């Protein structure tokens, strides 16, 4: 029986393993491309003020986008997991749209949303009138990242809340809590790791976001430049070394974030 299953398992391993090999090969190729020049290129690239600014803006915008994603994801995830309400299916479907939509389309749609005129004003012109600029400025970077990242946060948090037994909240109600009290004292603390996981996932997703940022915030060097747009700018000016160096940094950050999400997921298991 065991012997008979070997060729089958081997075939699965070869087919599935080829994809794993592709991922490993991509990262290895990036490292091999720079080879012995890696330390020197890294030093040069991260010594450049515009790339340092890009790194700082990435850290800043991803963190804000991740916080906003959790702020939207916790209530929405809870409502989707816990309550039966008319239109829940529709909302679940709508929330998944940013996940499946081509990133460029998200960017175009954001641009249109902020610039389409309702009466005499668009959102952008109204904000401009109040001294704020969104499109092609830092807020656009954050909104573009948030739009996609929040969808992932909502998915994670819906799953988190659906795995927490409703009974504990019901007991909290009998012990004197209001519905809000039971949420704060019982549901949310139990969802702690899920919230951290959603934050990390949203952060990592924001870091990799390019399409919506490209369209809605532009790729102006030193103004709306984040790491993903840095890679694009470096490539478009033929500086392949710098593009690979920044890519390697992003891979490292993504690996750390992914490790964190997996660890949090594992620790959360009962």
């Amino acid at each position, binding site marked *: 029986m065991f012997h008979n299953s070997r060729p089958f398992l081997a075939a699965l391993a070869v087919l599935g393993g080829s994809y794993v090999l592709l991922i490993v090969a991509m990262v290895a190729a990036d490292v091999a491309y720079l080879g012995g020049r890696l330390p020197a290129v890294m030093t040069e690239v991260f010594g450049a003020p515009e790339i340092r600014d890009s790194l700082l803006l990435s850290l800043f915008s991803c963190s804000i986008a991740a916080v906003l994603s959790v702020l939207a994801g916790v209530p929405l995830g809870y409502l989707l997991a816990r309550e039966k309400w008319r239109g829940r299916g529709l909302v679940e479907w709508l929330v998944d749209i940013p996940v499946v939509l081509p990133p460029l389309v998200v960017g175009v749609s954001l641009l249109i949303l902020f610039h389409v005129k309702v009466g005499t004003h668009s959102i952008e012109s109204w904000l401009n009138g109040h001294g704020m600029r969104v499109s092609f400025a830092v807020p656009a970077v954050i909104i573009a990242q948030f739009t996609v990242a929040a969808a992932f946060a909502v998915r994670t948090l819906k799953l988190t809340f659906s795995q927490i037994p409703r009974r504990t909240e*019901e007991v909290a109600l*009998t012990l004197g809590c209001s519905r809000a009290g039971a949420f704060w004292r019982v549901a949310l603390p139990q969802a702690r790791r899920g919230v951290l996981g959603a934050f990390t996932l949203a952060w990592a997703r924001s870091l990799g976001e390019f399409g919506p940022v490209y369209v809605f915030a532009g790729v102006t060097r030193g103004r709306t430049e984040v790491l993903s747009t840095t890679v694009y700018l470096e490539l478009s000016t033929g500086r392949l070394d710098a593009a690979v160096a920044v890519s390697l940094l992003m891979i490292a950050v993504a690996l750390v974030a992914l490790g964190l999400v997996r660890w949090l997921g594992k620790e959360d298991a009962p």
Partner: protein
Amino acid sequence: MITVSDFCVVAGKFRLENVSFTIAAGAHAVLMGPSGAGKTTTLEAICGLRAVESGRIVIADRDVSAFPPAERGIGFVPQDGALFPHLTVRENAAFALKVRRQSPADIVARVNELAAQLGLTQLLDRRVTELSGGEKQRVALARAVAFRPPVLLLDEPFSALDVPGRELLREHLQRLRAEERITILHVTHDPSDAEALATQVIKL
């Protein structure tokens, strides 16, 4: 005292109608019935966790039928205990007192008193995920009665326990009823629970 009169609960296709009973103050009533008869549903409805179509629920001379669960003054121990896994034994036991913003000194005194009654003193700083089935049920009991409710509702508290665990929990329940002067409504399908504990048996 607990009085349930003409109460009717509908949950999907399930329908429980014309349930009426009275339990005297300080009694230990056992609610029995076959699986699917609506025993748990009855407890949930008395707690306010399930909407009642009609009927009245009176707890210690207060008509609580329209009250939210928080204001009914009922200690509830569900079948699996449903302890709060993010809290220690001490924090679980103190939960209702903290919600009521009692003074830290009062909370410590009450938790220590209950821990002594229920044999939890050595476990107070443990996480509830590390406890045995019987220990969990005792923590759930301590948490349910900490705010001195006049009524305690138990849903199959012995179902996951072995024989010695059952005996021990029965002793604790008897002592708790005497010392806390609490009225107990206890759901079980085991006639030996009724024999050992009940002052009144209600059949669904």
